[in-house]
């Protein structure tokens, strides 16, 4: 077998095309390796060669999943590669979804081996870790070297059809696959060993981790809208002008609670977004595009809804840890419940 031919998928940022203002960039292909592909290429040594890089803006991909997937696949297909690598996307949500979508489609629709990499809390990880190999990376590009050191050997093994070891050995996210193997100790003995360790307070490794399903059942519907108090919550980072609570533009450590009594319309210069994960221009010009205060106020006056709750809650959902957003939401949800909120409209950017 000659050199393994590789196509690499990256976003507009890693391609050096631009940041959020270029997130609408349409799919394109360029010859050779670029950006993080250079590090991956170095890792491949002579075994494989990145013959092309396919690039797509994260905004375009996220907003046109089906079309973007098709276009990217077409671009990849023309190079007839032996292997496709997407990312690593670290904790960039839209990039993770794009990289996962591409990896899965390449594997299932083109029948070409593919791998990607991202941080475990990236929404793309939960979406795709069962269907494809997702190398577990750190949450920012500072972990590039580490990510590449896991991606390269796994990608080569996948491309050559070699046996893939366990998630711990290879550094990918658990896929929920059980594998039979021969062992010299029978089950009852292993179970007793585990139990003894557990009783002694020692660490033990289960052979069958329980899947973690955290689902909440839907609450009953609102019976009478005209009597209901509706509150707004957003991860789109809408704040009063000047961001008085200094909510961080990414990895937010706090949320804000803002009074909108008497506010009929969110005007430019009075309200803005603190979100650093997408182009803020549209929200800064008219924050109603993210939280619909104008429309809900109108419907309140018309008697369609009982009341727009006096406060809205806002944080920035950009690389923000799941544990943080869970904590914020627990706090303000309990508060809303106490304040008699009947229903919530939660908007995300």
């Amino acid at each position, binding site marked *: 077998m000659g050199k393994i031919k590789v196509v690499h998928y990256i976003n507009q940022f890693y391609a050096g095309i631009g940041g959020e203002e270029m*997130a609408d960039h349409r799919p394109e292909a360029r010859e050779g390796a670029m950006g993080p592909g250079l590090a991956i290429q170095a890792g491949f040594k002579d075994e494989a060669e990145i013959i092309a890089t396919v690039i797509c803006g994260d*905004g375009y991909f*996220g*907003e046109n*999943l089906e079309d973007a997937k098709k276009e990217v696949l077409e671009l990849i297909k023309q190079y007839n590669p032996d292997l496709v690598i997407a990312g690593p996307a670290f904790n960039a*949500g*839209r990039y993770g*979804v794009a990289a996962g979508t591409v990896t899965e489609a390449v594997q299932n629709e083109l029948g070409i081996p593919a791998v990607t990499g991202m941080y475990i809390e990236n*929404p793309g990880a*939960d*979406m795709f870790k069962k269907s494809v190999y997702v190398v577990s990376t750190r949450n920012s590009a500072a972990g590039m070297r580490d990510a590449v050191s896991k991606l390269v050997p796994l990608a080569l093994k996948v491309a050559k059809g070699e046996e893939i070891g366990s998630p711990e050995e290879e550094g990918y996210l658990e896929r929920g696959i059980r594998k039979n193997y021969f062992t010299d100790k029978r089950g009852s003995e292993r179970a007793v060993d585990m139990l003894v360790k557990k009783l002694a307070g020692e660490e033990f490794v289960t052979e069958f981790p329980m899947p973690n399903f*955290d*689902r*909440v*059942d*839907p*609450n*009953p*519907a*609102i*019976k009478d*809208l005209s009597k*209901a108090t509706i509150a707004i*919550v957003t*991860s789109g980072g809408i704040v009063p002008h000047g961001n008085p609570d200094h909510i961080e533009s990414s990895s937010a450590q706090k949320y804000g609670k803002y009074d909108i009594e008497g506010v009929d319309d969110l005007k430019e210069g009075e309200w803005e977004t603190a979100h650093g994960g*997408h*182009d803020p221009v*549209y*929200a800064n*010009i*008219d924050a*109603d*595009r*993210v*939280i*619909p205060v*104008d*429309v*809900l106020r*109108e419907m309140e006056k018309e008697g*369609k*809804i009982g009341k727009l709750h006096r406060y809205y809650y806002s*944080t920035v*959902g950009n690389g923000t840890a799941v544990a943080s957003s*869970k904590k*914020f*939401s*627990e706090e303000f*949800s*309990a508060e*809303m*419940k106490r304040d008699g909120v*009947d*229903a*919530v*409209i*939660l*908007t*995300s*950017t």
Partner: protein
Amino acid sequence: MVKEVERAGIPVVHMCTVVPISLTVGANRIVPAIAIPHPLGDPKLDPKEEKALRRKLVERALEALTTEVTEQTVFDVKK
């Protein structure tokens, strides 16, 4: 966040652009939105049309809140 609101006993509708993410995070009532940087607006429209579009999306969200659901449900907005 959406799950914690629901857990607190308040019905919640998630308005967002990337529906698969919303499904993954466990929202039960979902209304697909317009675009990531402007989920409830479209700068290409004139202000009046834009507000009408936003009203349509919000009305759909309120419909979702008044509809009983037993599982994750996407409430599409007719174009």
